[in-house]
């Protein structure tokens, strides 16, 4: 999701006076959407509200799912506003095109884009407000603006007199918008780049934080939906008598995805759902199995694919190579398993739809759900709650469609809740993929040619998925999400070719934390380790030499190796592995320290991460995001696997789709490279190097090369 658009050209500022006498400032981004939000009326909106009681409130259009955006965005605004950080509050915006993500063209949170996309616009919003507050103070004092400056929520005159932002708010709102907004130099930052406590912590400690699951409305009913156990299956017939006889069950209605049982609460809805008698028409996927998919991918990977990238003459170089190396890598489908199961609340009336819940894409919801409900986009109101994890899953809107259709059918507000089993079995998986690598090495072991061919589903162009509305397309026959991390092969190689073959089993695939990098960096960094072994070189030194032209890759690689004590003695049975990546504009390298027990059990003792994400906004949150992504990556590497038999997903809950727990948690150290580059993303880049670092460490410990996830020693 890296569509770079020149934001400064498209953005302009609008201000308006608040009814209560305050200053409101915001950006308006008219008509720039890649999607059909132009159909929604143009409305000026506020990112910032300063009221007479001295309260500075940042209105954030981005969804808080743990990544810290409700702290980072206020930090950007507060920095230029010269606000008193201790007085800043954050508020979630409603869905509105004015809050469109400059990278994506619609209001959404994903692709580790929040800070990258808003780094400049949010600081400009703060700076414009600051200048207007200064102008208001100068006006009040009949002083020169040049003799006034802003400091910690006050405008101060050179004589020493001061006025607070609250005192100045009403007058500031009448000031003209400054023509030229000058942003501070990074060396002058007081908030950005320093740590700041998260603004969202306190309500998350006492049960008062409101997630989608916690939405409560008068007259609200709860629905649990029976969906086809086989992908793409349809309801042939159903008998609702037993379900309707269950306590608390109010309605049983057929909707697009299956049959919804609507009751006075979750438990009764769930029991009612379980009492439904449904005959399913399984459709074409009834014989689908993981084994069959693997075989198909395995056959295809031996053939030629669509060329995604080519330089030099790879095939000729491979044919004439002194030393050749070949390997096939493989990863399975993965569920997100957010702690908060999928759920959404809708209240559908003849001429309006109100939605509440955990979503990464309120802008898309507004558009898609207006079509589902048959109203205009501006008649759809979306209230975004806190998200109990997103990881890409909540970029989708299947759960909201269920809520809208059910509410429409029963004429009451409806909260659709997925039991955990529905969540794990509910598709929207990280695509499974198989990739074949071929390399030709020269006498010194350096690559002369590398050919990579990946096979898998396309997220951007999955015909069976209901997301035509998101406008994603293949570019020259290749899905960028499927080859990201492969086409960025960073190692000096004169002949390089990356190919891709789309194969689409009827399984719902979707964005999963770090998307294509989640599998492709595992493939690349495993194979490069094999190249180093074949060359008889140290895996760190081998990478380092071949990354000479890529200083940011090399920088994180060196820092991670240094902090991990690469090459220094370890306890008996322990070994280190290393991996490096670029994703979402940031560079990460990780060193894993592992041991493998006699029983084949892999123990991960320590993960050392170095990240170069450019200028930092909140180093504490960056470190936590690296650690968080590492844990997510390790869970997938150790355990993560969705398998199918007879078209049905075989996993159901955390007992058979395990994730890392406290007793399995390694020590994690994160080191940030000092950088003056533009900010990179931080929500995902920590993930890609985690699995290959572990796999490479297992090789170092045991001599066993694992090319398939999840890790199995036997």
């Amino acid at each position, binding site marked *: 999701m890296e569509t770079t658009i020149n934001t400064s050209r498209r953005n302009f500022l609008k201000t308006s006076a608040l009814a209560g006498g305050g200053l409101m400032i915001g950006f308006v981004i008219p008509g720039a959407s890649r999607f059909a939000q132009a159909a929604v009326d143009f409305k000026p909106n506020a990112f910032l509200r300063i009221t007479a009681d001295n309260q500075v409130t940042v209105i954030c259009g981005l969804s808080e799912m743990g990544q810290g955006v409700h702290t980072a965005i206020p930090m950007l605004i507060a920095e230029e506003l010269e606000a008193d950080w201790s007085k800043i509050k954050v508020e979630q915006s409603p869905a509105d095109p004015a809050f469109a993500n400059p990278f994506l063209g619609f209001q959404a949170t994903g692709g580790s884009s929040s800070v990258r996309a808003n780094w400049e616009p949010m600081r400009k919003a703060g700076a414009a407000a600051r200048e207007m507050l200064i102008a208001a103070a100068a006006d009040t004092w009949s002083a020169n603006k040049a003799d006034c400056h802003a400091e910690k929520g006050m405008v101060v005159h050179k004589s020493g007199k001061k006025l607070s932002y609250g005192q100045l708010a009403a007058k500031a709102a009448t000031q003209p918008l400054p023509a030229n907004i000058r942003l501070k130099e990074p060396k002058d930052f007081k908030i950005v780049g320093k740590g700041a406590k998260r603004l969202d912590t306190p309500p998350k400690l006492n*049960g008062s934080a409101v997630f989608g699951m916690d939405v409560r409305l008068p007259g609200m009913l709860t629905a649990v939906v029976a969906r086809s156990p086989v992908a793409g299956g349809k309801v042939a017939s159903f008998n609702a008598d037993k379900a309707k006889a269950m306590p608390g069950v109010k309605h049983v209605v057929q909707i697009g995805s299956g049959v919804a049982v609507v009751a006075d609460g979750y*438990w*009764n809805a769930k029991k009612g759902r379980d009492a439904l008698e449904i005959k399913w028409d399984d459709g074409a996927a009834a014989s689908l199995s993981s084994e069959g998919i693997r075989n198909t991918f395995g056959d295809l990977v031996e053939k030629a694919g669509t060329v995604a990238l080519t330089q030099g003459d790879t095939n000729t170089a491979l044919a004439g190579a002194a030393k050749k190396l070949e390997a096939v890598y493989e990863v399975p489908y993965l569920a997100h398993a957010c702690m*908060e199961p999928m759920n959404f609340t809708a209240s559908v009336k003849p001429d309006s739809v109100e939605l509440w819940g955990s979503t990464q894409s309120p802008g898309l919801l507004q558009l898609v759900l207006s079509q589902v409900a048959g109203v205009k986009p501006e008649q759809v109101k979306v209230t975004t709650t806190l998200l109990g994890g997103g990881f890409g899953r909540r970029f989708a809107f299947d759960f909201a469609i269920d809520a809208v259709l059910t509410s429409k059918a029963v004429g009451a507000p409806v909260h659709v809740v997925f039991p955990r089993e529905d969540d794990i079995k509910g598709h929207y998986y990280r695509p499974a993929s198989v990739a074949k690598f071929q390399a030709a090495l020269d006498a010194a072991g350096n690559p002369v040619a590398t050919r990579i061919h990946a096979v898998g589903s396309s997220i951007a162009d999955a015909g069976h998925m209901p997301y035509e509305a998101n406008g994603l397309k293949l570019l020259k026959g290749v899905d960028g999400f499927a080859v990201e991390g492969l086409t960025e092969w960073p190692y000096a190689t004169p002949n390089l070719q990356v190919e891709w073959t789309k194969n689409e089993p009827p399984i719902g695939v979707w964005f999963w934390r770090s998307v294509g990098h989640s599998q492709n960096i595992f493939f690349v960094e495993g194979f490069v380790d094999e190249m180093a072994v074949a060359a008889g070189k140290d895996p760190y030194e081998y990478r380092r030499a071949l990354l000479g032209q890529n200083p940011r890759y090399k920088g994180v690689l060196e820092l991670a190796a240094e902090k991990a004590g690469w090459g220094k003695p370890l306890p008996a049975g322990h070994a280190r592995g290393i991996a490096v990546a670029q994703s979402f504009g940031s560079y990460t390298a990780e060193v894993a320290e592992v041991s493998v027990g006699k029983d084949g059990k892999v123990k991960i003792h320590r993960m050392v991460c170095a990240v170069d994400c450019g200028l930092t906004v909140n180093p504490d949150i960056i470190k936590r995001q690296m650690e968080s992504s590492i*844990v*997510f990556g390790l*869970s997938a590497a150790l355990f993560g696997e969705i398998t199918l038999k007879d078209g049905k997903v075989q996993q159901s809950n955390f007992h058979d789709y395990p994730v890392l727990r406290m007793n399995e948690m390694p020590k994690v150290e994160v080191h940030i490279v000092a950088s003056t580059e533009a900010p990179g993303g931080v929500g995902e880049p920590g993930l890609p190097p985690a699995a290959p670092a572990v796999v490479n460490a297992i090789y170092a410990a045991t001599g066993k090369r694992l090319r398939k996830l999840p890790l199995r020693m036997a």
Partner: protein
Amino acid sequence: MTTVSFSVNGKNVRADVAPDTPLLWVVRDTLGMTGTKFGCGEGVCGACTVHVDGKPVRSCTTPVSAVAGKQITTVEAVGATAAGHAVQAAWLKHDVPQCGYCQSGQIMSATALLAKNKKPSDTEIDAAMSGNICRCGTYNQIRAAIKDAAASMHKEA
């Protein structure tokens, strides 16, 4: 339907529900207290942890009939206990939560641990906390905060 009486956070409550209804859904849907979270429905993720007579219990697999006459504490009131207060303060100091959804359960498990063990070892922390999943991976911060909370309780004791 049956009537079950018990106390929640010091208040006597009555619930008229099917006796097999899990305590979790009585707390969330009948009593309207949403701090206790639904994560898995089979007692393996810990998000729904509450205290029943001071002991940590997975409320999603505890039928409400099993808590008749008992005292339930949820995250909304756990801060009123010495251990709960220390845990919440340490969680704030370490900025533990990310998405925060699992943290009600983490705090309830950690509080129950510290209420009976004033100085838990790493192994004891593992034993008490490994039933609570965090998909954001805050385990190291949870461990540090538990140790900090334990230290602060020693100081006050």
